[in-house]
């Protein structure tokens, strides 16, 4: 990460503008134990209180790093019931990074966030339809399968 991804100008700009970054050696205590670190890199998104919401283990190339971090930011908002913020971040991932490996999960979470913020199930069916049409082999298409039955 330090040699390939973090020196990229768009990665630098994204991190400095949108997150508070910290790098720790993998044996730094008490954090390595607290976060159960078994392999590196382990890239974790925390909320403002230090609670974990998203984790990626393994190398992320520059083109996957930003959408992966955006998904982490969206999950922080989702978990804290800030669905409007989550939806804004998820829509950016879907629009700006359609080829990212993070995007099918973003579509799934968009459907769930839409449902939870309105109690209208239509966003769940819309998520299924988009995943089925555009990402049929993703695990998120499979997870959305029950939503095909929504009328």
């Amino acid at each position, binding site marked *: 990460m330090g040699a390939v991804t973090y020196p990229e100008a768009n990665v630098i*700009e994204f991190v400095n503008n949108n997150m508070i970054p910290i790098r720790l050696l993998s044996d730094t205590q008490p954090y390595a134990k607290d976060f159960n670190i078994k392999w590196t890199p382990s890239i974790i998104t925390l909320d403002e209180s230090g609670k974990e919401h998203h984790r990626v283990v393994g190398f992320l190339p520059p083109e996957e790093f930003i959408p992966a971090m955006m998904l982490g930011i969206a999950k922080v908002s989702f978990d804290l019931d800030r669905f409007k913020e989550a939806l804004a971040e998820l829509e950016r991932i879907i629009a700006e990074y359609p080829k990212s490996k993070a995007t099918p999960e973003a579509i799934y979470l968009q459907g769930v966030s839409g449902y939870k913020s309105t109690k209208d199930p239509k966003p769940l069916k819309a998520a299924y339809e988009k995943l089925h049409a555009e990402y049929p082999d993703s695990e998120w298409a499979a997870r959305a399968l029950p939503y095909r039955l929504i009328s």
Partner: protein
Amino acid sequence: MAEIKWEKEMDAVLARAKREKKPILLDFFNPN
């Protein structure tokens, strides 16, 4: 911007995150 502005202390990170209302990127790495 030449590089990511990594913090070194978790207490400083948490204080900044609360002040700036931003999520935290925590990267555990092995330099070897």
